[in-house]
């Protein structure tokens, strides 16, 4: 079994014959970590996966966002990032006329949207015009650290499906770390607890099995 190496900012990363990709900088042909995180090697590449890092907008990411401000033709959206994103009225399924945006999405509303464009200075634009994208009507929103999103989803969605099934909730995980959960209050709380455990213990072996046991126990108590 391969051992994952933990690195801190400034630690040298042994790249071997792999191609260094994310989370490293070069100095005199050597590579050093920019994060406190884990070294991840694939067939070709080597990356540093940080334990925590701010979400940076990437085109085609499906995210959950919160409406922060309403302009004449655009909404400003908090995407759990240092950077706000924009949603233009023409990028919605509705026929919105200028100055009338608040009728469709108000401040505080959440949306499940896709980042259609982003640029090198981290400006980004959203769209609601794709399958499954929508305004999120009922339910609760929580956030997890953006780098933990893949673990919350699990391989082929196995972790999040397990949580959904065992807690009887509906869940949408945004790639930016905002997560929407809907269901009965107790069930939602159970799902939140479960997701928080996955976030905290994302690096522990056999997490899926442990989570399965945990959720079964939780169910027994209710």
């Amino acid at each position: 079994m391969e051992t994952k190496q933990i690195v801190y900012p400034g630690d040298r990363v042994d790249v071997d014959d792999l191609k260094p990709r994310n989370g490293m900088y070069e100095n005199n042909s050597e590579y050093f970590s920019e994060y406190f995180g884990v070294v991840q090697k694939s067939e070709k590449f080597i990356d540093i996966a940080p334990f925590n890092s701010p979400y940076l907008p990437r085109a085609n990411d499906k995210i959950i966002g919160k409406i922060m401000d309403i302009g004449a033709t655009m909404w400003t959206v908090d995407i759990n990032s240092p950077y706000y994103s924009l949603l233009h009225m023409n990028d919605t399924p509705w026929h919105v006329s200028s100055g009338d945006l608040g009728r469709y999405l108000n401040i505080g509303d959440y949306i499940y949207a896709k980042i259609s464009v982003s640029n090198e200075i981290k400006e980004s634009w959203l769209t609601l015009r794709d399958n499954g994208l929508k305004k999120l009507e009922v339910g609760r929103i929580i956030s997890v650290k953006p780098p933990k999103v893949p673990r919350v989803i699990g391989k082929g969605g196995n972790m999040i499906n397990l949580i959904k099934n065992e807690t009887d909730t509906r869940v949408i995980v945004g790639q930016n770390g905002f997560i929407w959960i809907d269901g009965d209050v107790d069930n939602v709380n159970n799902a939140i607890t479960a997701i928080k455990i996955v976030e905290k213990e994302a690096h522990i072996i056999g997490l899926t099995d442990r989570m399965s046991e945990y959720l079964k126990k939780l169910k027994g108590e209710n």
Partner: protein
Amino acid sequence: MESNIKLITDDGLRLDGRALNEMRPIKIQTGVVEKADGSAYIEWGANKIIAAVYVREAYPKHAQNIDRAIVKARYNMSGYSVEERKRPGPDRRTMEISKVVTEALESTIVLEKLPRAEVDVFIQVLEADAGTRIASLTTASVAVADAGVPMRDMVVGCTAGKAGGKIVLDLSKDEDNFGEADIPMAILPRTKKIVLLQLDGNVSQEEFDEATSMMMNAIPRISEIQRNALMSKYNVEEGE
């Protein structure tokens, strides 16, 4: 300051019983300010300091740098943190410290990875007992790493100085008040580059060399404490 306090005892120890090159105990904990993107709390001797980091678009918009982040560290003292009550708000001393701490952090943060952003580092000194700027910077560096802000290296701070005619590591309050010199320094542990250096007092060039070499020897130990603090929050088990 004139004083007759004898800072080094006859058996070569300091008033608090430490050897000349002995540090006070240091403890660091991360994740102490839940609302922040990253945070860390340090107890360094009797110093108690919290640092919290927020990363956000710089505001107002005209204050943004289109190609890199702005760093702003703010060093602030609680009213009860020192002997005489400290009036809330900045003064000349705290503003200078904010500036040198900001610059030290700026030298290691990968600014171009966060264009238009501002990295706000709020430092609150709850209890002060000599060496707060260095303890602040050491804990701020952990908070920045905890926030996942990209950094080329950590920043590790330390002080040395001259007291009772001897070069000593990590000055106590008495040594700071009544000693001959105080030299706070911070370095990037990988390259050993100095990112903060101040000197206040009177030392020979040989004594300065002795002080810096003492600090360089102490850096790896402080660095280790920073790493353990980051690690402990994650229950990380190796060999996944």
